[in-house]
């Protein structure tokens, strides 16, 4: 029997004597996250130093803000890890309502802050909160709970797929008002993945996918700026100074990187050529400075992160923690898909979206929700382990 108090107070003697003890936290997962965050801090500093120097007069401005966010994120991750899974399962619907309220609030002029034509931020004292980052996680928490509650009705189209779709569409509509298409795409794909993993019928799943694709196509066609982005993505070199500008600059950054990069701090593209170099396009700057090697390391780190999430979900499922399993799958999908989409956008493999690269991009809301997401994984793992050893 290993008690929680025992876990809290590790020392050399117990570690040696408890030869059969498992590690307290997932070393692979934490290692990946810390590696990504560490690299992220370095790259945020490197990619923002000139920009911050020029616009704010302090080259380390973004580094400091990001460092504070990371510190807060680590704390929130720890707190989240210590919470009981049951709390989240029960809180899902309320969190959803709260999150949707924030999404409405951000649209109200005066409450929301508009940057570059998008109303994505709420001012909360000294910090700006981005509700669309929160809602991604909230939806995962909610949907996981929904699947567990309606375990038996998932074969039923109306009960299984339709209700969830309604929720996603409602949130999607709110996100489109900001607009924040990137968040909507990530949410939709994450929920689709969760539906699939939860075991809905193939043809139900197919209907949702087709509907989603058609819906996205319509959204793209009716909004000129989205259409331009798609066209710009298909052939960025056709108009490299307008619609294709950002993508062309990102591709050039990749091309300059070659195998081992131009060296840390030596990026040219970050010198105002590449817009959003320290946020959405930090991966391109990483590619330029650290080369293919750095890119592959980041890709593998995200792969390990997703894999750990899935392994945690399997362990949870084995011991019967169905909610924890669904939650871990959802979090893994959320982080993995967002990373994949961001990296794909950076490499010109996907149309441009306003999405951050989890743990690397500058952005307090993104960092905090990403850490909370990892906290949820660690929480599930903690309870799984406790469950397996019969603590409960």
């Amino acid at each position, binding site marked *: 029997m290993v008690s929680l108090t025992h876990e809290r107070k590790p020392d050399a003697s117990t570690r040696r004597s408890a030869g059969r003890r498992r590690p307290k936290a997932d070393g692979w997962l934490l290692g990946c996250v810390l590696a990504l965050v560490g690299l992220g801090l370095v790259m945020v500093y490197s990619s923002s130093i*000139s920009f911050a120097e020029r616009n704010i007069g302090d080259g380390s401005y973004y580094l400091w803000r990001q460092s504070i966010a990371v510190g807060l994120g680590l704390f929130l991750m720890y707190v989240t890890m210590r919470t009981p*899974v*049951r709390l989240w*399962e029960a809180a899902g619907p309320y969190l959803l309502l709260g999150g949707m309220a924030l999404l409405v609030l951000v649209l109200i002029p005066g409450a929301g802050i508009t940057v570059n034509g998008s109303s994505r931020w709420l001012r909360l004292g000294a910090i700006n909160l981005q509700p669309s980052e929160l809602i991604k996680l909230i939806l995962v928490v909610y949907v996981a709970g929904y699947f*567990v509650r309606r*375990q038996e009705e998932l074969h039923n189209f109306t009960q299984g797929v339709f209700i969830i779709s309604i929720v996603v569409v409602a949130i999607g509509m709110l996100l489109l008002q900001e607009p924040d298409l990137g968040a909507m795409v990530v949410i939709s794909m994450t929920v689709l*993945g969760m539906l*699939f*993993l*939860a*075991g809905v019928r193939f043809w139900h799943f197919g209907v949702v996918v087709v509907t989603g694709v058609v819906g996205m196509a319509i959204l793209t066609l009716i909004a000129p700026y989205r259409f331009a982005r798609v066209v710009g993505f298909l052939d960025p070199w056709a108009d*490299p100074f307008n619609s294709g500008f950002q993508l*062309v600059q990102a*591709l*050039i950054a*990749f*091309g*300059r*990187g*070659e*195998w081992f990069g131009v060296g840390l701090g030596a990026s*040219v*593209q970050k*010198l*105002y*050529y590449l817009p959003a170099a320290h946020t959405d396009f930090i991966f391109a700057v990483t*590619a330029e400075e650290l*080369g*293919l090697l750095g*890119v*592959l390391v980041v*890709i*593998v780190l*995200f*792969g390990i992160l*997703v*894999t750990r999430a*899935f392994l945690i*979900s*399997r362990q949870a*499922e*084995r*011991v*019967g*923690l*169905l*909610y924890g399993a669904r939650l871990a*799958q959802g979090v893994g*999908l959320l982080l*993995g*898909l967002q990373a*994949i989409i961001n*990296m*794909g956008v950076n*490499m*010109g*493999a996907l149309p441009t979206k306003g999405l951050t690269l989890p743990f690397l991009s500058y952005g307090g809301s993104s960092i905090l929700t990403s850490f909370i997401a990892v906290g949820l994984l660690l929480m599930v793992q903690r309870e799984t382990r406790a469950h397996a050893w019969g603590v409960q």
Partner: protein
Amino acid sequence: MSHSGRSMRHPVRYWLVLSGLWAILGLLGVRATYLQVVASDYLQRQGDARYLRTVTDNAHRGMILDRNGSPLAISTPVQSVWADPPAFMRARQRWPALARVLGLQQRDLARQVRKYADREFMYLKRHVTPDVAARARALKIPGVFLQREYRRYYPTGAVSGHVIGFTDIDDRGQQGLELAYEAMLRSTPGKKRVLRDLYGNIIETVESVSLATPGKDLVVSLDRRIQYLVYRELGAAMEAYNARAATAIVMDTHTGEVLAMVNLPGFNPNNRSKLTSAAFRNRAVTDVFEPGSTLKPFTVAAALESGQLTPESLIDTAPGRFRVGTKIIRDLRNYGELSVAQVIEKSSNVGAAKIALSMSKEQIWGMLRRAGFGETTGSRLPGESAGLLNPPSQWVSIDQASVSFGYGISVTSLQLARAYAVLANDGVLVPITMLRRDAPVRGVKVMTRRTAQQIRNMLELAVSRRGTGAAAQLLHYSVAGKTGTVHKLISGDYAKDRYVASFAGMAPASNPRLVMVVTVDEPEARRHFGGQTAAPVFSRVMAGALRLLNIAPDIPQQGLRWAAPTTSAPPA
């Protein structure tokens, strides 16, 4: 919440999704490899096209130094403010501040920027003071940069303005020696490829395409001290005689080097904003005048060379008038019977005409031609005139007579100086140069040594107490020279009250080292003779120049022989 029982609900879907995610990550890795390894050359070229620029690196123009190494023209680095119009356009709210610093009108600035909107480079203001450059830089306006350029500075200012000339704002020679030796003085800007950020700031130099090479220094024949002396004395004379213009040249007789060349009124090449191009003319080589009596020695030289006359041969000039065709040639008074030497000493027109008419046209023409009249001197100074010496086939007898005393022929001051250098140099014409000559140069024998010496003796008489050029005398040095006073030719007619007074001479007469020509354009009517206006300038300059050049006096006890000039000395 416990759902124990089945170990795993959808293992296939689980592995499908996980492997799907890994497959996508793998594809991203493939895409990255393609971009960073396969397409990297193309992408890098695209990047280079966006931020690699070739910029020029200016080097300084060669200095112009006088024969002793004193600077006459030097280049000092200055800053020019330029803009990258597209970047500058984005900082429109900063324009007023910049306009204030640069002293530009806001409206003019806006118009200029609009004009160059689709370019990558435009000057905002050139050659600003270091203070203005520093303040413009401190504004930190995107798209505004400084470029190092060179501004030409002339330490001697107006003293050598005409002969040195000047450069334009792009450092290209425009006048004078700056133009003549442009190819040598010019610097070659270097080219280098630099990496720029989006706002145009240079991040680093990628490669140096070509190095900037400064121009070569030019050592000219001028002696700054003598140049200044000439400038001062000529200016004093200009003022004293209220003259319209004046020119003087000092030459080294043996080497053909021009030691000083001054035109007045002068101009300051350092500040010429309000001047017209006429003011820049180096009249010593561009403007011609009828030399008058200063040409008589060459008439006599032709006669002596022909062997028809000796210095002692007598010419009857009575009654001071001589009719040639329809024209009457006059002397100032009736000199009666004069020797050839006295014709020079008294400057008798009648005597010169009679000597000329005793020879063939070709003999006179040939002497003048050999002495260098009617052709440029090869000084390479821009705009040099060849003067006018009509071929003898076009001469009628009055032409032959009037050429003998310097009418009907046009010369430049420099030509006259060169011709006198022939007399000074025992009959050898040494090519003129504006550069310091370090090795002796071969001249051309123009007349016999004997003839040249005989002429010099006559010219020595001409500056004696009884001669017309007595004011040219020097303490301790013997002088040989000739005055000239001609009516100005104004649109085809000789003006009654407008003259060009001149003096051409050399010193020391026993072994001439320096030749000097002075012309004064339109001195006031009361004192218009060359002996009154030009000769004193010669005297004052020569006294200083001979001492400066350490030339030994040839008549140490001259004080006994020397007498005050007949004319009153001009105020210094």
